[in-house]
Structure formats: C-alpha cells, structure tokens
C-alpha cells in the first residue's frame, strides 16, 4: 500500500494509459477510439510533468535578491546569482518544455484523426467500424 501512495502519480498514469489503450483497441466507434488515443497521450504527458515536480519548489525563474538600481551591473549580479542557485528551490523545467512539444504533436494527431473520421463519415454515413467494414465487403 505504501508503494501505491508514495508513487501515486505513476499509478494514475498507468491507470489512465490502460483506459486509453483499452478504448483504442476494444471500442468499435471511431470517435471513442480517438478519445482513447487522447487519454493515452495525456497519461504520458502527466507522467512527464509529474517527474519534474518537487515539493516546496517554485517556477524555474532565477531570483536575484538585490535588484540593481539601474542597468549597470545587472548582468554581473545575475551571473553571480546563477552561481549560488539552489536547484532544490526550482522545479525541473525540462519535462514541461518537452511536454509542450508533445501536446503540439497530440493536437496535430487529433486534428488529422478527426479529419479522417469526417471523411469516413461522409463516405460511409456511419462511425461504427463494423458497419464500415460491412459496407466495404
């Protein structure tokens, strides 16, 4: 039970992934398949985002505590601040950045999938895979 609670983010992503996979493979309705696909992709996004999170950490923008009165010396102070940065205070931004790209990819996939489904509906007048297969035979 401890394993479940301590690593609950992984369990949730596995659960979501299985729901998505089930819908993609077992459902007959094409739109339900697409919904399953999106749940599947979202599960992976959740997985990535959750590994970047840290307790008591903030967004990854480096704070410099003594703001310079003018532009002069600003860069120098920033460099100094960067050297004394404590990585435990900031969440890891990289997984989030990666997931921005993955979200773009999943939106594009969704777009292509819906476009194909629209064409399928216009051609066969149904969204049920078995009915389409019947018409093809």
């Amino acid at each position, binding site marked *: 039970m401890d394993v479940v609670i301590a690593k609950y983010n992984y369990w949730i992503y596995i659960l979501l992934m299985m729901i998505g996979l089930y819908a993609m493979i077992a459902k007959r309705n094409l739109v339900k398949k697409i919904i399953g696909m999106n749940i599947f992709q979202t599960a992976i996004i959740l997985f990535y985002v959750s590994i970047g999170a840290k307790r008591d950490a903030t967004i990854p923008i480096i704070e410099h505590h003594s703001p310079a009165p003018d532009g002069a010396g600003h860069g120098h102070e920033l460099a100094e601040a960067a050297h004394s940065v404590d990585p435990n205070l900031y969440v890891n931004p990289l997984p989030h950045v990666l997931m921005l790209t993955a979200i773009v990819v999943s939106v594009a996939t969704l777009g292509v*999938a819906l476009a194909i489904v629209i*064409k399928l509906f216009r051609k066969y007048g149904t969204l049920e895979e078995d009915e389409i297969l019947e018409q093809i035979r």
Partner: protein
Amino acid sequence: MNIVEQLPVLLLVIPLLTALVISLTGVFSQRSAFPLTVISTGLVLVIAAWTLARVTTDGVIHYRLGGWPPPFGIEYVVDHLNALVLVVIAFVGFLAAIYSKQHVVEEMPAKISQFYTLYVLLITGLLGITITGDAFNLYVLLEISALTSYALIAIGKDRALLSSFNYLIMGTIGACFYLLGVGHLYIMGGSLNMPDLQGILVNLYGTDAIQVAFVLILVGVWVKMAFFPVHGWLPNAYTYAPSATSCMMAPLMTKVSVYVMIRVMFSVYSPSFTFETFAMHTEIVWLAVAAILGGSLLALAQTNFKKMLTYLIVAEVGYMVGGVWLANRLGITGAVLHIVNDALMTLCLFFVAGIVLFKVKGCRFEDLRGLFRTMPFTMAAFTVAALSMIGVPPTCGFFSKYYLIMGAIEAGEWVYMGALIVSSLVNAVLFFRVIELAFFDAPRGEPVVAAAVGQGGQAPAAPEDHGGPAEADRDAAGEHGGHGHDEQVVEPIDEAPPSMLVPLIVVAAALIVVGLCTGEIVDSIVQFTVPAGLP
C-alpha cells in the same frame, strides 16, 4: 560562416522550407510544386552523398544546433550508419519524386501542391529521424513523418481512409511507447542526448527502470516498423495508398524504423547491455523467424500484386531485425546492408506496381497477363527486382542474404537460417508465378486464339525474344524485326511515360550496381557501423 560546416542542418532546412514554399505558391499555381520538389530532393541527395563521403574520410560529424554544447542543446551526429541511411532516403525520395509526377496529375489533379507539401515534409521527418542525436528530437520527427504519412495514405481510394485511421491508431501507440521509454531514460539518466545517455547509463544497466525503458522503446519501434505480431496496419495502408505515396513510403518508413532500433540498441544502450544484460536475442530471433515465415506465407495467399508486396515487406523486416539480433559482425553487416538493398528492391517493385496500376488500372494477378509484350522495359526491371528478392547472385539481394545466412551459421541460429532459405523459396514461387503470367499468358481482354495454343506456346513466346531483359540495351528497331518475321498480330508496345520509366530503370540498374559494389560498400562504410567488441 562556413557553409560546409552547416551542411548537416541544411539537409533538414532545405526540405522543410521547400514544404512551406510549395504550400504558399500552391495558392496561386499548382504547377510549381513538382519542380520545387525535384530541386529540393535533388539538393538533399547531393548533400547526403557529400556527407557520406566526408564521413568516410574524416570520421563522425557533430553538428550543434544553435551552437549549444551537447547535453543542453540538440546535437546532430552523423556516423557511417546514418550517413548511409541518409543517402538511401535522399535517393529514394529523389527518384520517387520524379516518378510521382504523372501519378499525382492523374490521381489528385486538384491537390498537387498539397501532396508535394506533405511529400517533402515526410522526407524531412525521415531525414531528421536519421540524423538527430537526441532521443526526444527523434520522437518529434518520428511524429512529423507519421502524421504526414497518415494524410498521404488517406488520399487513396477504396479502403484507404479506414487503413489510414488504423495506421494512425497503431502509429500513435508505437510513438507513445517510444516516448514513455525515453521518459524512463530521462528519469534515470537526466539527459536526452544519445552519446551522453550512453555514458550515464553504463552504471545503471542492472536497474529495472532501464530495462523497462528498453522494452518500451523496442515495442514502440516494432509497431512503427510493422514487426510481425504488430504488423497489422501495414498491408492495407500501403496497398490502398495512392501509388505516388506508397512507392516512397514502403521502402523508407520501415527501414528508418529499423535504423532507429539499431541506434537505440548500440548508441543509446550498448552492445554489452543489449546482448549480455538484456540478453533476449534468442527470443527476438524467434520472433524474426515468425515474421519471415508469417510474411511469406501471407504473401502466398494474396491475389493482389501490390498487397503481396506489402506482406513481403513484413517478411523483410524480419530479416533485418533477426540479423541485428544475431549479435555478431556478419549478422549486423547483413542487416545494415539489407536496409539499403531492401529499400532499393521495394522501391523498384512498387514502381512496377504503380506503373501497372497506371496503365492497366488494376493490380490483381490477372491484370498482369501478357505485360511483357506491352511493357518490356517495366517487366525487365521487374525481373531484376524479383531476382534480387529471391537472391540471385549478381543482384544486391543475394549479398545481404549471404551475410545474414553466414551470420546465422556463426551464431548457431539454424532456425533463422532455415527461415531465410524458405523465404527465398517462397519468393521464387511468388515471383515466378507473376513472371509466368506476364510472360506466357495472353494479354488481358484479348481472346486466346486457338492457333496460338496449337503452336504449343510458341506464338506468345516469339515476341518475348525481343521483349525480355535483353531488350533493355536494344531499341525499338529490334522489336520491329520481330514483327516482320512473325505475321502474328502482336500487342503494340504501350510503355509507361518516360517520367516513370527512367526512375524505374535507374533503380533496376542500382540493384545490380550495388550488388557488384557490395565489397566496397562493406569495406568503406558498413563495417564501421558494427559496434566494436562483437564476435
């Protein structure tokens, strides 16, 4: 700025920008799309060939995008393996672009620029997968090529839409598994750069997460390459795709996925992990055997020429995966060589299938009757490709199969060796059936004259004297002589247009040239792709 230093990135930038230009100019004129595509793929071919030459002389090229040093920025790494694959992609992309002209005009007259936009984007994606040295960047480019290929397949007729949808579902599952594997690697290693990861992972090989990551990536890539148990999406998708699409996609998509598998096995992980820690090669070679036999037997059951070819691709994927997992020099040499050879063979066969569809409007076996008479050049090229698929010596198919079989003997994988030989026999049966139909049967629609049958097949064979492979170096004059001495009514030659015929003949010639140059290719390129330390 030295332009020579920037060439690796230009490989991607040129087609990417061309896609943009084509889609913009397409608003005003559909006619500029084709020349732009040919020019950009031609340029890419030149750069890829130059890159390969430079790699063979100077060694591995590292290119830093934006000048960021490796673990932080994206790095392109070009070594012997991906330089070779880059040339293959560029070559196939260039020839298929020329070949596609008439197909596109006929199949999608209103969407020429849209087609070529997607075409060039697909080439960009495939080149990017091959050149990148970053695990996540590879995922993005994998999806670029996948998304464009869904759209390209969906343009086709009949079942194309549904096949494209199934491919989309399967392809997304594959890509997501890959992404998940990369996520595990990132958690454990904290890096996405392949050479960097390889160094970090060495100490972590014993952990479960790293092994799970390996399995996830393998399964993802297998779905993408249509390895046997998960090959279901491929045959329909490639059969019903428009000819202009399938002749480029069929040779490239699966081969590039095989490349990704090799890259992950040896450059993200290492041979010691793959073959000693993970050590599933016996089981995977068995899967490869299932792929070869399954693909070959399913091919035997087909009555559609193009669909038969798609099942042969499934079998060929089994060749390459099995070859890599033999875990010795000969096997991996054979597999890498087969990436090149199979791309060329598949290209040649799909060119022929496209030409048959274009001229005869059908691709069932009965549509192929008597084609040697009406299309001697096409069928001569087909014969070369068929011999190469069977593995007859001067053609390149023989040499990669030879390496694979020698590797199998060395590894003691007798079943895999047996499967290769059985598959060659099945190929022989398949292709001689086609050659028999095309050579000896009367053309479709022409009633078989009783007299012709009475002459014991001599009549149909007569024009074949001039219509066979020997025809290739003669011209129509020789054919004319054939008409003279035999007063039979012969079907006039009705060849494909030159824009299709020239690429076809170039590929057919390449099959023989690559076969004859196998020694040089192995010595100067392929032997460096085998990781050190293997038996």
